[in-house]
Protein backbone atom coordinates (compact mmCIF):
# COMPACT_ATOMS: atom_id res chain seq x y z
CA UNK A 1 0.00 0.00 0.00
CA UNK A 2 1.37 3.33 -1.04
CA UNK A 3 1.45 6.17 1.37
CA UNK A 4 0.15 9.63 0.90
CA UNK A 5 0.57 12.05 3.76
CA UNK A 6 -0.95 15.44 4.37
CA UNK A 7 2.12 17.27 3.13
CA UNK A 8 2.21 15.40 -0.17
CA UNK A 9 -1.52 15.78 -0.56
CA UNK A 10 -1.38 19.53 -0.07
CA UNK A 11 1.49 19.66 -2.50
CA UNK A 12 -0.70 17.96 -5.10
CA UNK A 13 -3.47 20.45 -4.44
CA UNK A 14 -1.27 23.54 -4.69
CA UNK A 15 0.37 22.22 -7.84
CA UNK A 16 -2.99 22.48 -9.56
CA UNK A 17 -4.78 25.26 -7.70
CA UNK A 18 -1.87 27.38 -6.36
CA UNK A 19 -3.35 30.07 -4.11
CA UNK A 20 -6.99 29.29 -4.80
CA UNK A 21 -6.89 26.68 -2.07
CA UNK A 22 -5.40 27.64 1.28
CA UNK A 23 -4.35 25.43 4.12
CA UNK A 24 -6.19 26.20 7.34
CA UNK A 25 -4.86 23.65 9.77
CA UNK A 26 -4.41 19.99 10.45
CA UNK A 27 -6.57 19.46 13.54
CA UNK A 28 -6.03 15.95 14.90
CA UNK A 29 -4.16 14.98 11.75
CA UNK A 30 -6.93 15.78 9.30
CA UNK A 31 -5.82 18.13 6.55
CA UNK A 32 -8.26 21.03 6.33
CA UNK A 33 -8.23 23.37 3.37
CA UNK A 34 -10.38 26.28 2.34
CA UNK A 35 -11.41 27.30 -1.12
CA UNK A 36 -14.15 29.34 -2.71
CA UNK A 37 -17.28 28.40 -4.55
CA UNK A 38 -15.76 29.08 -7.96
CA UNK A 39 -13.20 26.35 -7.43
CA UNK A 40 -14.96 23.86 -5.18
CA UNK A 41 -16.27 21.55 -7.88
CA UNK A 42 -12.96 21.63 -9.74
CA UNK A 43 -11.18 20.78 -6.52
CA UNK A 44 -13.55 17.94 -5.67
CA UNK A 45 -13.27 16.55 -9.17
CA UNK A 46 -9.48 16.84 -9.08
CA UNK A 47 -9.28 15.04 -5.76
CA UNK A 48 -11.65 12.36 -6.96
CA UNK A 49 -10.16 11.64 -10.35
CA UNK A 50 -6.41 12.20 -10.15
CA UNK A 51 -4.77 8.83 -10.11
CA UNK A 52 -2.35 9.60 -7.27
CA UNK A 53 -5.12 10.82 -4.96
CA UNK A 54 -8.40 9.02 -5.68
CA UNK A 55 -10.64 10.56 -3.07
CA UNK A 56 -13.50 8.54 -4.48
CA UNK A 57 -15.51 8.38 -1.29
CA UNK A 58 -17.62 11.32 -0.21
CA UNK A 59 -17.94 10.88 3.51
CA UNK A 60 -20.05 13.84 4.39
CA UNK A 61 -21.36 17.28 3.49
CA UNK A 62 -22.59 19.62 6.16
CA UNK A 63 -22.55 23.28 7.08
CA UNK A 64 -21.89 25.51 10.02
CA UNK A 65 -23.10 29.00 10.87
CA UNK A 66 -20.83 31.69 12.31
CA UNK A 67 -23.03 34.77 12.74
CA UNK A 68 -20.08 36.95 13.76
CA UNK A 69 -18.06 36.34 10.64
CA UNK A 70 -18.33 38.33 7.48
CA UNK A 71 -18.87 35.11 5.54
CA UNK A 72 -21.33 33.47 7.85
CA UNK A 73 -22.06 30.10 6.31
CA UNK A 74 -19.37 27.48 6.04
CA UNK A 75 -20.01 24.43 3.89
CA UNK A 76 -17.84 21.50 4.92
CA UNK A 77 -16.93 18.48 2.84
CA UNK A 78 -15.21 15.37 4.12
CA UNK A 79 -13.60 13.13 1.54
CA UNK A 80 -11.87 9.83 2.02
CA UNK A 81 -9.34 8.18 -0.27
CA UNK A 82 -10.00 4.48 0.10
CA UNK A 83 -6.82 3.68 -1.79
CA UNK A 84 -4.47 5.68 0.41
CA UNK A 85 -6.67 5.65 3.51
CA UNK A 86 -6.42 9.36 4.11
CA UNK A 87 -9.15 11.89 4.69
CA UNK A 88 -9.40 15.55 3.79
CA UNK A 89 -11.73 18.30 4.92
CA UNK A 90 -12.66 21.15 2.61
CA UNK A 91 -14.39 24.33 3.69
CA UNK A 92 -16.11 26.96 1.63
CA UNK A 93 -17.38 30.08 3.32
CA UNK A 94 -20.36 31.92 1.86
CA UNK A 95 -21.93 35.25 2.60
CA UNK A 96 -25.30 35.18 4.21
CA UNK A 97 -27.96 36.21 1.72
CA UNK A 98 -25.83 34.88 -1.11
CA UNK A 99 -25.36 31.33 0.12
CA UNK A 100 -25.08 29.77 -3.30
CA UNK A 101 -22.65 26.99 -4.12
CA UNK A 102 -22.58 24.56 -7.05
CA UNK A 103 -23.84 21.08 -6.37
CA UNK A 104 -21.62 18.03 -6.07
CA UNK A 105 -24.36 15.69 -7.29
CA UNK A 106 -22.61 15.58 -10.65
CA UNK A 107 -19.70 13.84 -8.97
CA UNK A 108 -21.48 11.68 -6.43
CA UNK A 109 -25.11 10.66 -6.29
CA UNK A 110 -24.66 10.33 -2.55
CA UNK A 111 -24.32 14.12 -2.35
CA UNK A 112 -28.00 14.45 -3.17
CA UNK A 113 -29.43 13.84 0.28
CA UNK A 114 -26.47 15.34 2.11
CA UNK A 115 -27.01 18.61 0.25
CA UNK A 116 -30.73 18.48 0.82
CA UNK A 117 -30.11 18.08 4.53
CA UNK A 118 -27.67 20.99 4.51
CA UNK A 119 -30.18 23.14 2.65
CA UNK A 120 -32.89 22.11 5.06
CA UNK A 121 -30.81 23.07 8.10
CA UNK A 122 -28.97 26.18 6.88
CA UNK A 123 -30.58 27.37 3.66
CA UNK A 124 -27.48 26.78 1.58
CA UNK A 125 -28.54 26.84 -2.08
CA UNK A 126 -26.80 24.12 -4.04
CA UNK A 127 -27.09 25.39 -7.61
CA UNK A 128 -27.84 22.68 -10.10
CA UNK A 129 -29.16 20.21 -7.55
CA UNK A 130 -31.87 18.09 -9.16
CA UNK A 131 -34.33 18.31 -6.28
CA UNK A 132 -33.35 20.83 -3.64
CA UNK A 133 -36.28 20.58 -1.25
CA UNK A 134 -36.50 20.04 2.48
CA UNK A 135 -35.82 16.53 3.64
CA UNK A 136 -36.16 16.23 7.41
CA UNK A 137 -38.32 19.22 8.32
CA UNK A 138 -41.85 19.89 7.15
CA UNK A 139 -42.18 21.36 3.69
CA UNK A 140 -43.92 24.55 4.79
CA UNK A 141 -41.31 25.51 7.36
CA UNK A 142 -40.20 29.07 6.73
CA UNK A 143 -36.89 29.16 8.63
CA UNK A 144 -33.62 27.28 8.49
CA UNK A 145 -33.51 25.95 12.01
CA UNK A 146 -29.83 25.15 12.50
CA UNK A 147 -28.80 28.79 12.10
CA UNK A 148 -27.72 30.41 15.31
CA UNK A 149 -30.51 32.99 15.44
CA UNK A 150 -33.05 30.32 16.29
CA UNK A 151 -32.67 29.39 19.94
CA UNK A 152 -33.72 25.99 21.12
CA UNK A 153 -34.67 26.59 24.71
CA UNK A 154 -37.68 28.40 26.08
CA UNK A 155 -36.60 32.07 25.84
CA UNK A 156 -38.17 32.78 29.24
CA UNK A 157 -35.83 30.47 31.11
CA UNK A 158 -33.10 32.49 32.74
CA UNK A 159 -31.06 29.62 34.15
CA UNK A 160 -29.79 28.72 30.70
CA UNK A 161 -28.80 32.26 29.77
CA UNK A 162 -25.32 32.60 28.46
CA UNK A 163 -24.22 35.29 30.89
CA UNK A 164 -24.21 32.85 33.80
CA UNK A 165 -21.86 30.29 32.43
CA UNK A 166 -20.81 31.40 29.00
CA UNK A 167 -22.23 29.49 26.08
Amino acid at each position, binding site marked *: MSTLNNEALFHYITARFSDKVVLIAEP*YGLLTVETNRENIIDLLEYLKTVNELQFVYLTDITAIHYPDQEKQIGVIYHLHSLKHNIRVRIKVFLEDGDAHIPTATGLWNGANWMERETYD*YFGVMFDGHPNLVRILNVDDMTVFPMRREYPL*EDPNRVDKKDFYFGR
Partner: protein
Amino acid sequence: MQNFPSITDTDTSVQSELSTLNLGPTHPATHGVFQNVLQMDGERIVSGVSTIGYIHRAFEKIAEHRPFYQITPLTDRLNYCSAPINNMGWHMTVEKLLNIETPKRVDYLRVIVMELARIADHIICNGVLGVDTGAFTGFLYMMEYREAIYEIYEEVCGSRLTTNIGRIGGFERNFNEIAFAKIRKFLVDFPKVLKEFESLFNRNRIFVDRTKGVAPVTAAQAIDYSWSGPLMRAAGIDYDVRAMNPYSSYQDFDFEVPVGTTGDVYDRFLVRNEEMWQSLRMIEQALSKIDKEDPTIFHADVPEFYLPPKEEVYNNMEALIYHFKIVMGEIETPVGEVYHAVEGANGELGFYLVNDGGRTPYRLHFRRPSFINYSMYADMSQGMLLSDAIINMSSLNVIAGELDA
Protein backbone atom coordinates in the same frame (compact mmCIF):
# COMPACT_ATOMS: atom_id res chain seq x y z
CA MET B 1 -30.50 2.42 -11.50
CA GLN B 2 -31.19 -1.24 -11.88
CA ASN B 3 -32.04 -0.81 -15.50
CA PHE B 4 -34.52 -3.58 -15.22
CA PRO B 5 -36.53 -3.64 -18.40
CA SER B 6 -39.45 -1.48 -17.52
CA ILE B 7 -42.64 -3.19 -18.55
CA THR B 8 -44.59 0.04 -18.67
CA ASP B 9 -46.43 0.20 -21.94
CA THR B 10 -44.62 2.23 -24.48
CA ASP B 11 -47.15 1.21 -27.06
CA THR B 12 -49.31 4.28 -27.18
CA SER B 13 -52.10 2.52 -28.99
CA VAL B 14 -52.98 0.75 -25.77
CA GLN B 15 -54.62 2.58 -22.93
CA SER B 16 -52.41 2.45 -19.85
CA GLU B 17 -52.63 3.83 -16.38
CA LEU B 18 -50.28 3.86 -13.42
CA SER B 19 -51.52 3.56 -9.89
CA THR B 20 -50.09 5.38 -6.92
CA LEU B 21 -49.26 3.37 -3.84
CA ASN B 22 -48.45 4.94 -0.52
CA LEU B 23 -46.07 2.47 1.05
CA GLY B 24 -45.93 3.76 4.58
CA PRO B 25 -45.44 5.82 6.73
CA THR B 26 -46.87 3.11 8.97
CA HIS B 27 -46.91 -0.06 6.98
CA PRO B 28 -46.43 -3.46 8.60
CA ALA B 29 -43.96 -4.49 5.92
CA THR B 30 -41.54 -1.63 6.35
CA HIS B 31 -40.53 -1.99 10.03
CA GLY B 32 -40.38 1.66 10.89
CA VAL B 33 -41.62 5.04 9.83
CA PHE B 34 -40.72 5.13 6.16
CA GLN B 35 -42.92 6.53 3.46
CA ASN B 36 -42.43 5.80 -0.19
CA VAL B 37 -44.89 7.08 -2.72
CA LEU B 38 -44.65 4.59 -5.53
CA GLN B 39 -45.95 4.73 -9.07
CA MET B 40 -46.95 1.19 -9.83
CA ASP B 41 -47.58 -0.61 -13.05
CA GLY B 42 -49.23 -3.73 -11.71
CA GLU B 43 -46.67 -5.27 -9.40
CA ARG B 44 -43.75 -3.33 -10.84
CA ILE B 45 -42.47 -0.07 -9.42
CA VAL B 46 -42.09 2.54 -12.12
CA SER B 47 -40.79 5.29 -9.88
CA GLY B 48 -40.73 6.18 -6.25
CA VAL B 49 -40.18 9.10 -3.94
CA SER B 50 -38.92 8.56 -0.40
CA THR B 51 -40.30 10.88 2.24
CA ILE B 52 -38.35 10.88 5.46
CA GLY B 53 -38.24 12.93 8.63
CA TYR B 54 -41.24 11.48 10.44
CA ILE B 55 -39.29 11.07 13.65
CA HIS B 56 -36.87 13.95 13.18
CA ARG B 57 -35.99 15.22 16.66
CA ALA B 58 -33.38 17.86 15.82
CA PHE B 59 -30.60 16.13 17.73
CA GLU B 60 -27.95 18.31 16.15
CA LYS B 61 -29.72 21.41 17.41
CA ILE B 62 -30.28 19.93 20.86
CA ALA B 63 -26.62 18.92 21.01
CA GLU B 64 -25.60 22.57 20.63
CA HIS B 65 -27.28 23.22 23.96
CA ARG B 66 -26.03 20.30 26.03
CA PRO B 67 -22.73 19.66 27.81
CA PHE B 68 -20.77 16.76 26.36
CA TYR B 69 -21.91 14.11 28.80
CA GLN B 70 -25.57 14.93 28.17
CA ILE B 71 -25.19 14.21 24.47
CA THR B 72 -24.62 10.48 25.08
CA PRO B 73 -28.34 9.79 25.60
CA LEU B 74 -29.06 11.53 22.30
CA THR B 75 -26.74 9.13 20.49
CA ASP B 76 -28.63 6.20 22.03
CA ARG B 77 -31.59 7.20 19.97
CA LEU B 78 -29.85 7.20 16.62
CA ASN B 79 -29.50 3.52 15.86
CA TYR B 80 -31.38 2.16 18.84
CA CYS B 81 -30.74 -1.45 17.82
CA SER B 82 -27.05 -1.01 18.62
CA ALA B 83 -27.00 1.96 20.96
CA PRO B 84 -23.67 1.08 22.67
CA ILE B 85 -21.73 1.59 19.44
CA ASN B 86 -23.15 5.09 19.17
CA ASN B 87 -22.34 5.80 22.82
CA MET B 88 -18.78 4.60 22.47
CA GLY B 89 -18.36 6.51 19.22
CA TRP B 90 -19.37 9.69 20.98
CA HIS B 91 -17.13 9.08 23.99
CA MET B 92 -14.20 8.41 21.71
CA THR B 93 -14.90 11.59 19.74
CA VAL B 94 -14.74 13.65 22.92
CA GLU B 95 -11.67 11.75 24.10
CA LYS B 96 -10.00 12.54 20.81
CA LEU B 97 -10.83 16.22 21.27
CA LEU B 98 -9.54 16.20 24.85
CA ASN B 99 -6.50 14.04 24.04
CA ILE B 100 -7.48 11.41 26.57
CA GLU B 101 -5.75 8.09 26.19
CA THR B 102 -7.81 5.22 27.54
CA PRO B 103 -6.18 2.20 29.20
CA LYS B 104 -6.09 -1.03 27.21
CA ARG B 105 -8.55 -2.73 29.50
CA VAL B 106 -11.12 -0.02 28.81
CA ASP B 107 -10.56 -0.44 25.08
CA TYR B 108 -11.09 -4.19 25.30
CA LEU B 109 -14.20 -3.82 27.43
CA ARG B 110 -15.49 -1.39 24.85
CA VAL B 111 -14.76 -3.83 22.07
CA ILE B 112 -16.79 -6.48 23.91
CA VAL B 113 -19.77 -4.16 24.30
CA MET B 114 -19.57 -2.85 20.74
CA GLU B 115 -19.30 -6.30 19.21
CA LEU B 116 -22.20 -7.53 21.29
CA ALA B 117 -24.18 -4.57 19.98
CA ARG B 118 -23.21 -5.44 16.42
CA ILE B 119 -24.43 -9.00 16.95
CA ALA B 120 -27.70 -7.71 18.43
CA ASP B 121 -28.20 -5.45 15.43
CA HIS B 122 -27.44 -8.15 12.88
CA ILE B 123 -29.72 -10.58 14.73
CA ILE B 124 -32.59 -8.18 14.14
CA CYS B 125 -31.73 -7.46 10.53
CA ASN B 126 -31.15 -11.01 9.40
CA GLY B 127 -33.95 -12.38 11.54
CA VAL B 128 -36.42 -9.92 10.12
CA LEU B 129 -35.19 -10.58 6.60
CA GLY B 130 -36.21 -14.18 7.24
CA VAL B 131 -39.61 -13.06 8.48
CA ASP B 132 -40.12 -10.92 5.39
CA THR B 133 -39.39 -13.86 3.16
CA GLY B 134 -41.82 -16.01 5.13
CA ALA B 135 -39.63 -17.84 7.64
CA PHE B 136 -40.50 -16.93 11.18
CA THR B 137 -38.56 -19.68 12.92
CA GLY B 138 -35.06 -18.31 12.56
CA PHE B 139 -36.15 -14.97 13.92
CA LEU B 140 -37.65 -16.58 17.00
CA TYR B 141 -34.55 -18.66 17.72
CA MET B 142 -32.21 -15.71 17.35
CA MET B 143 -34.33 -13.20 19.22
CA GLU B 144 -33.72 -15.06 22.46
CA TYR B 145 -30.07 -14.14 22.17
CA ARG B 146 -30.73 -10.48 21.70
CA GLU B 147 -32.36 -10.82 25.11
CA ALA B 148 -29.17 -12.42 26.40
CA ILE B 149 -27.17 -9.48 25.07
CA TYR B 150 -29.57 -7.01 26.67
CA GLU B 151 -29.07 -8.80 29.97
CA ILE B 152 -25.34 -8.24 29.61
CA TYR B 153 -25.92 -4.54 28.99
CA GLU B 154 -28.19 -4.49 31.99
CA GLU B 155 -25.45 -5.98 34.14
CA VAL B 156 -22.94 -3.43 32.87
CA CYS B 157 -24.96 -0.23 32.86
CA GLY B 158 -28.46 -0.97 34.17
CA SER B 159 -30.44 -0.35 31.02
CA ARG B 160 -31.29 -2.34 27.97
CA LEU B 161 -32.31 -0.58 24.79
CA THR B 162 -31.15 3.02 25.05
CA THR B 163 -28.14 2.18 27.12
CA ASN B 164 -26.23 5.42 27.81
CA ILE B 165 -23.37 3.03 28.48
CA GLY B 166 -19.93 4.23 29.52
CA ARG B 167 -18.65 7.68 30.28
CA ILE B 168 -16.08 9.97 28.77
CA GLY B 169 -12.82 8.26 29.73
CA GLY B 170 -14.18 4.79 30.36
CA PHE B 171 -17.10 3.09 32.04
CA GLU B 172 -19.27 4.32 34.88
CA ARG B 173 -18.52 1.17 36.86
CA ASN B 174 -16.43 -1.93 36.51
CA PHE B 175 -17.84 -5.07 34.90
CA ASN B 176 -18.90 -7.45 37.65
CA GLU B 177 -18.47 -11.21 37.73
CA ILE B 178 -22.05 -11.80 36.65
CA ALA B 179 -21.46 -9.74 33.52
CA PHE B 180 -18.39 -11.77 32.60
CA ALA B 181 -20.24 -14.99 33.35
CA LYS B 182 -23.08 -13.93 31.09
CA ILE B 183 -20.67 -12.97 28.30
CA ARG B 184 -18.96 -16.36 28.55
CA LYS B 185 -22.32 -18.13 28.55
CA PHE B 186 -23.30 -16.17 25.47
CA LEU B 187 -20.10 -17.22 23.72
CA VAL B 188 -20.95 -20.84 24.41
CA ASP B 189 -24.66 -20.74 23.57
CA PHE B 190 -24.94 -18.37 20.66
CA PRO B 191 -22.66 -20.10 18.11
CA LYS B 192 -24.90 -23.17 18.15
CA VAL B 193 -27.95 -21.08 17.39
CA LEU B 194 -26.18 -19.04 14.74
CA LYS B 195 -25.09 -22.27 13.09
CA GLU B 196 -28.63 -23.55 13.20
CA PHE B 197 -29.86 -20.25 11.79
CA GLU B 198 -27.40 -20.49 8.93
CA SER B 199 -28.37 -24.06 8.16
CA LEU B 200 -32.01 -22.94 8.06
CA PHE B 201 -31.33 -20.21 5.54
CA ASN B 202 -28.06 -20.34 3.64
CA ARG B 203 -29.02 -23.16 1.30
CA ASN B 204 -32.75 -22.95 1.74
CA ARG B 205 -34.18 -23.05 -1.76
CA ILE B 206 -37.09 -20.74 -1.04
CA PHE B 207 -34.92 -18.18 0.73
CA VAL B 208 -32.19 -18.24 -1.90
CA ASP B 209 -34.67 -17.92 -4.75
CA ARG B 210 -36.28 -15.05 -2.97
CA THR B 211 -33.10 -13.08 -2.23
CA LYS B 212 -30.46 -13.96 -4.80
CA GLY B 213 -30.20 -11.44 -7.58
CA VAL B 214 -32.60 -9.08 -5.82
CA ALA B 215 -31.41 -5.47 -5.80
CA PRO B 216 -27.81 -6.11 -6.84
CA VAL B 217 -25.46 -3.18 -6.35
CA THR B 218 -22.08 -2.85 -7.99
CA ALA B 219 -19.02 -1.60 -6.18
CA ALA B 220 -19.05 1.58 -8.26
CA GLN B 221 -22.65 2.31 -7.36
CA ALA B 222 -21.95 1.67 -3.69
CA ILE B 223 -19.14 4.23 -3.72
CA ASP B 224 -21.14 6.66 -5.80
CA TYR B 225 -23.89 6.68 -3.18
CA SER B 226 -21.38 6.78 -0.29
CA TRP B 227 -22.62 3.48 1.07
CA SER B 228 -20.77 1.95 3.96
CA GLY B 229 -20.92 -0.97 6.33
CA PRO B 230 -22.19 -4.45 5.48
CA LEU B 231 -24.01 -3.12 2.42
CA MET B 232 -20.84 -1.79 0.87
CA ARG B 233 -18.90 -4.89 1.80
CA ALA B 234 -21.59 -7.04 0.20
CA ALA B 235 -20.97 -5.06 -2.97
CA GLY B 236 -17.34 -6.12 -2.85
CA ILE B 237 -15.49 -3.25 -1.19
CA ASP B 238 -13.65 -4.22 1.96
CA TYR B 239 -14.07 -0.88 3.65
CA ASP B 240 -14.40 -1.38 7.38
CA VAL B 241 -13.52 1.48 9.72
CA ARG B 242 -12.34 -1.03 12.33
CA ALA B 243 -9.68 -2.26 9.93
CA MET B 244 -8.81 0.94 8.09
CA ASN B 245 -8.86 3.47 10.92
CA PRO B 246 -8.66 1.33 14.05
CA TYR B 247 -10.07 2.86 17.20
CA SER B 248 -10.41 1.39 20.67
CA SER B 249 -7.42 -0.92 20.04
CA TYR B 250 -9.07 -2.84 17.19
CA GLN B 251 -5.57 -3.14 15.75
CA ASP B 252 -4.80 -5.66 18.51
CA PHE B 253 -7.46 -8.04 17.25
CA ASP B 254 -7.33 -10.71 14.66
CA PHE B 255 -10.47 -10.60 12.53
CA GLU B 256 -11.53 -10.82 8.94
CA VAL B 257 -13.63 -8.42 6.91
CA PRO B 258 -16.14 -10.49 4.96
CA VAL B 259 -16.98 -9.22 1.50
CA GLY B 260 -19.61 -10.23 -1.02
CA THR B 261 -19.55 -10.00 -4.78
CA THR B 262 -22.91 -8.98 -6.13
CA GLY B 263 -24.29 -6.70 -3.42
CA ASP B 264 -27.67 -8.35 -3.63
CA VAL B 265 -29.92 -9.15 -0.68
CA TYR B 266 -28.47 -12.64 -0.34
CA ASP B 267 -24.90 -11.36 -0.18
CA ARG B 268 -25.83 -8.78 2.43
CA PHE B 269 -27.39 -11.57 4.48
CA LEU B 270 -24.24 -13.68 4.23
CA VAL B 271 -21.96 -10.76 5.06
CA ARG B 272 -23.96 -9.94 8.19
CA ASN B 273 -23.92 -13.58 9.30
CA GLU B 274 -20.18 -13.78 8.83
CA GLU B 275 -19.73 -10.53 10.73
CA MET B 276 -21.48 -12.10 13.68
CA TRP B 277 -18.92 -14.92 13.65
CA GLN B 278 -16.11 -12.37 13.49
CA SER B 279 -17.65 -10.43 16.36
CA LEU B 280 -17.74 -13.59 18.44
CA ARG B 281 -14.08 -14.14 17.66
CA MET B 282 -13.25 -10.63 18.77
CA ILE B 283 -15.16 -10.95 22.03
CA GLU B 284 -13.30 -14.15 22.78
CA GLN B 285 -9.97 -12.48 22.09
CA ALA B 286 -10.96 -9.48 24.18
CA LEU B 287 -11.81 -11.70 27.14
CA SER B 288 -8.44 -13.39 27.06
CA LYS B 289 -6.67 -10.03 26.67
CA ILE B 290 -8.57 -8.61 29.64
CA ASP B 291 -7.31 -11.43 31.83
CA LYS B 292 -3.82 -10.02 31.42
CA GLU B 293 -4.82 -6.50 32.49
CA ASP B 294 -5.27 -5.02 35.92
CA PRO B 295 -8.87 -5.96 36.82
CA THR B 296 -9.48 -2.76 38.78
CA ILE B 297 -9.05 -0.40 35.82
CA PHE B 298 -12.25 0.61 34.12
CA HIS B 299 -11.63 4.26 33.25
CA ALA B 300 -8.80 6.57 32.32
CA ASP B 301 -7.18 8.59 35.04
CA VAL B 302 -8.62 11.94 34.01
CA PRO B 303 -10.37 13.36 37.09
CA GLU B 304 -11.20 16.65 35.38
CA PHE B 305 -13.30 14.91 32.72
CA TYR B 306 -14.42 11.62 34.24
CA LEU B 307 -17.43 11.97 36.52
CA PRO B 308 -16.28 10.91 40.03
CA PRO B 309 -18.18 8.30 42.04
CA LYS B 310 -20.80 9.71 44.38
CA GLU B 311 -19.10 8.74 47.65
CA GLU B 312 -16.04 10.63 46.50
CA VAL B 313 -18.17 13.67 45.71
CA TYR B 314 -19.51 13.74 49.26
CA ASN B 315 -16.18 13.17 50.98
CA ASN B 316 -13.50 14.68 48.79
CA MET B 317 -13.09 18.33 47.93
CA GLU B 318 -11.47 17.83 44.52
CA ALA B 319 -14.08 15.29 43.50
CA LEU B 320 -16.83 17.72 44.46
CA ILE B 321 -15.24 20.48 42.37
CA TYR B 322 -14.81 18.20 39.38
CA HIS B 323 -18.33 16.88 39.76
CA PHE B 324 -19.72 20.41 39.74
CA LYS B 325 -17.62 21.49 36.79
CA ILE B 326 -18.48 18.45 34.70
CA VAL B 327 -22.19 18.60 35.44
CA MET B 328 -22.38 22.34 34.75
CA GLY B 329 -20.34 21.96 31.58
CA GLU B 330 -17.54 24.08 33.00
CA ILE B 331 -14.68 21.78 32.05
CA GLU B 332 -11.81 23.30 30.12
CA THR B 333 -12.00 22.02 26.59
CA PRO B 334 -9.66 22.85 23.72
CA VAL B 335 -10.89 24.85 20.77
CA GLY B 336 -10.84 22.65 17.75
CA GLU B 337 -12.67 20.41 15.38
CA VAL B 338 -12.56 16.68 15.19
CA TYR B 339 -14.06 14.03 12.95
CA HIS B 340 -14.20 10.59 14.43
CA ALA B 341 -15.74 7.59 12.76
CA VAL B 342 -16.64 4.22 14.15
CA GLU B 343 -17.97 1.17 12.34
CA GLY B 344 -21.61 1.18 13.34
CA ALA B 345 -23.77 -1.81 12.63
CA ASN B 346 -24.92 -0.11 9.43
CA GLY B 347 -21.69 1.50 8.39
CA GLU B 348 -19.48 4.47 9.06
CA LEU B 349 -20.98 6.40 11.93
CA GLY B 350 -19.16 9.71 12.03
CA PHE B 351 -19.17 12.51 14.57
CA TYR B 352 -18.05 15.91 13.35
CA LEU B 353 -17.56 18.01 16.44
CA VAL B 354 -16.64 21.68 16.32
CA ASN B 355 -15.75 23.05 19.73
CA ASP B 356 -15.20 26.68 20.63
CA GLY B 357 -14.33 26.02 24.25
CA GLY B 358 -17.83 26.78 25.49
CA ARG B 359 -20.16 24.68 27.61
CA THR B 360 -21.53 22.81 24.65
CA PRO B 361 -20.37 21.86 21.17
CA TYR B 362 -20.49 24.76 18.76
CA ARG B 363 -21.69 22.35 16.14
CA LEU B 364 -22.13 18.61 16.14
CA HIS B 365 -22.96 16.73 13.00
CA PHE B 366 -23.76 13.04 12.90
CA ARG B 367 -22.76 11.20 9.75
CA ARG B 368 -25.54 8.67 9.91
CA PRO B 369 -25.05 5.58 7.75
CA SER B 370 -28.75 4.77 7.53
CA PHE B 371 -29.51 8.23 6.15
CA ILE B 372 -26.87 7.95 3.48
CA ASN B 373 -27.50 4.30 2.63
CA TYR B 374 -31.21 4.93 2.24
CA SER B 375 -30.78 7.66 -0.36
CA MET B 376 -30.37 5.04 -3.07
CA TYR B 377 -33.59 3.25 -2.20
CA ALA B 378 -36.02 5.09 -4.46
CA ASP B 379 -33.62 4.95 -7.41
CA MET B 380 -32.81 1.28 -6.98
CA SER B 381 -36.47 0.35 -6.67
CA GLN B 382 -37.24 1.37 -10.22
CA GLY B 383 -38.40 -1.58 -12.22
CA MET B 384 -38.41 -3.81 -9.17
CA LEU B 385 -41.30 -5.94 -8.03
CA LEU B 386 -43.02 -4.57 -4.95
CA SER B 387 -42.30 -7.76 -3.02
CA ASP B 388 -38.60 -7.44 -3.87
CA ALA B 389 -38.58 -3.80 -2.82
CA ILE B 390 -39.87 -4.88 0.59
CA ILE B 391 -37.09 -7.36 1.25
CA ASN B 392 -34.60 -4.90 -0.21
CA MET B 393 -35.62 -2.36 2.38
CA SER B 394 -35.44 -5.01 5.04
CA SER B 395 -31.87 -5.90 4.14
CA LEU B 396 -30.79 -2.25 3.97
CA ASN B 397 -31.52 -2.31 7.72
CA VAL B 398 -32.50 1.33 7.80
CA ILE B 399 -33.24 2.33 11.37
CA ALA B 400 -35.69 5.19 11.58
CA GLY B 401 -33.91 6.85 14.48
CA GLU B 402 -30.65 6.97 12.61
CA LEU B 403 -32.32 7.99 9.37
CA ASP B 404 -34.02 11.04 10.81
CA ALA B 405 -31.82 11.96 13.78
